[in-house]
């Protein structure tokens, strides 16, 4: 009977594969042993929490735990979407992330292009070191650095007063915070971000510049017509890498700066700070988990989507 022989063939195949698996594991057992600690780490701290997303669909009780809490279908999601702050935090997250990305990219490219025009090697080295330095500080230190700048007797207000201008009460004025946060983000990250663009510029063939030189192009023309266009694919690639994270707010930047200062929530409250407060203050675990799951799912879909798009439009900037 053909079907019987087919079954036995599949069974034999499976057996052979199993044997192959064991043979492979024993032949390279020391190599596989080396992977065990890392596998244990990823299972415990990454994959187990992934299974924990069931909480997002539960009327979660910390006493009953994820195994015995009752399911409430999509109630956590509807609570979330109907929360009065929901639209505001989603808008703030997207708005601030767009600003961070745009200004970060602008200043990184600016720094890279200018460093490329500078002739003195030692000047270049010093300037680059200074501009990269803030990248190495933690966000809490950055927030601490902001205090003597922004507080009521801070440098900015002292200077404003001396110029006869009205001081700004930063910690009570939400309108200025998109600017404050962008400046801090640029301060910390733009120098480090310029490294990748500098490397791209260094990779441009010298012949291209020489040809332009012979055609009589001056420095400005070479910068605008050669260097900047050459940076385009790097910029697009970095943009694509960031698309998957647009719904993840910059918690590290915003929470140490703003904390629970509700005066500023209008412009600074993002999905991540909102969820953190929901978790810590209200203990609303189901809703917080629903937010986390939505961020992950949207991010995942966006990464796959942008990559498919990139592969179609510019194959060289596809990520995988």
């Amino acid at each position, binding site marked *: 009977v053909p079907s019987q022989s087919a079954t036995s063939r599949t069974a034999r195949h499976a057996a052979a594969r199993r044997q192959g698996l064991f043979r492979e594991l024993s032949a390279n057992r020391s190599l596989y042993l080396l992977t065990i600690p890392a596998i244990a780490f990823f299972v415990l701290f990454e994959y187990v929490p992934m299974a924990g997303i069931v*909480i997002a669909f539960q009327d979660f009780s910390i006493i009953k735990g*994820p195994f015995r809490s009752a399911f409430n279908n999509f109630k956590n999601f509807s609570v979330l979407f109907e929360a009065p702050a929901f639209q505001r935090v989603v808008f703030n997250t997207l708005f601030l992330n767009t600003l961070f990305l745009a200004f970060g990219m602008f200043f990184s490219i600016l720094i890279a292009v200018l460093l490329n025009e500078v002739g003195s090697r030692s000047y270049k080295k*010093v300037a680059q070191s200074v501009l990269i330095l803030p990248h190495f500080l933690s966000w809490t230190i950055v927030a601490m650095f902001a205090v003597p700048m922004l507080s009521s007797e801070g440098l900015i207000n002292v200077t404003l007063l001396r110029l006869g201008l009205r001081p700004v009460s930063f910690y009570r004025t939400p309108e200025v915070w998109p600017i404050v946060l962008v400046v801090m983000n640029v301060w910390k990250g733009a120098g480090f971000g310029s490294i990748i663009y500098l490397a791209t510029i260094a990779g441009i063939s010298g012949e291209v510049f020489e040809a332009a030189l012979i055609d009589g192009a001056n420095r400005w023309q070479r910068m605008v017509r050669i260097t900047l266009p050459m940076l385009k694919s790097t910029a697009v690639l970095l943009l694509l890498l960031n698309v998957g994270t647009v719904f993840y707010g910059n918690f590290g930047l915003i929470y140490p700066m703003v904390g629970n200062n509700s005066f500023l929530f209008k412009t600074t409250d993002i999905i991540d700070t909102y969820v953190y407060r929901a978790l810590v203050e209200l203990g609303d675990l189901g809703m917080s988990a629903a937010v*986390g799951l939505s961020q992950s799912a949207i991010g995942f879909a966006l990464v796959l989507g942008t990559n498919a798009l990139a592969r179609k439009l510019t194959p060289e900037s596809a990520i995988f």
Partner: protein
Amino acid sequence: MQDTRRRRRQYLGAGTLDDVAVVGSSYGILTLLAILCLIPFVLVVASSFTDELSLIRDGYRLIPAKLSAYAYEVIIEAGIVTRAYGVTIFITAVGTALSMAVTCGIAYAISINGLRYRNQLSFFVYFTMLFHGGLVPTYLLIAKYLHMKNTLWVMILPVLVNPWNMFLLRNFFKTVPAELPESAKMDGATDMHILFRIVVPVSLPAMATIGLFYALGFWNEWFRAMLFIDRERLYPLQYLIMRIIRNIQFVDQVATEAGIDTSTFMPDYSARMATAVLTIGPIVLIYPFVQRYFVKGLLVGSIKG
């Protein structure tokens, strides 16, 4: 004729007026950006060395009106910063060592072409970069089921392996010429022997880069401390800083709210600034020597594949 001469001059770098303008403004803008970059540093250091009363009277200034190192004496005496230093040094040293051991293990294994399941293992790691369980399940796991609250391990184990660093290291290991391990294997060396005697020694610069990435991460740790640590003697430096900022803002808010002259409320400005200086001190001092490793690591990481 004149045209050729101009071209030659350009070639030699003398440049036209336009070129001089471009180079000049490059120097100008970069210098301005660098100064803006340094102002907060100067301000914090200057304030930390300013006499408390003059700080209250004149506000924060780039050049102290009256010098004083009293703030440092007070903080060092109080011992809070010293203890936080101990915590931070512990999690940085132990964390980096453990992270490197575990990361090297898997990175080496999957860098070997003869390993049949290397692609499956890579995907197993890669998937954790694409999808996350989120804050809530992780929090419950660590706090409720693993009972790691208020332990130093909570700042080390949940971030032990960074997938990005793992792939960087794998790529480094892949560049080790295959003849080295192969000839050793023919001489009867085991995989472990090859890893520790051949691959690790030739990859030392790469390992230093990844080790520094991890060390910086552990040194700058505050998020897990905020979630899981509420015993003050287990605070790492960065979280201590956060607590200090919270107090300033709180007092600032209360004072403005009540319409009280803020200066009477905050007697310890310079001490706060001195704490910040002590926290970033090691980074700023080590920075010039390690900067190139970070740059190199970033560049290797940016190459696809």
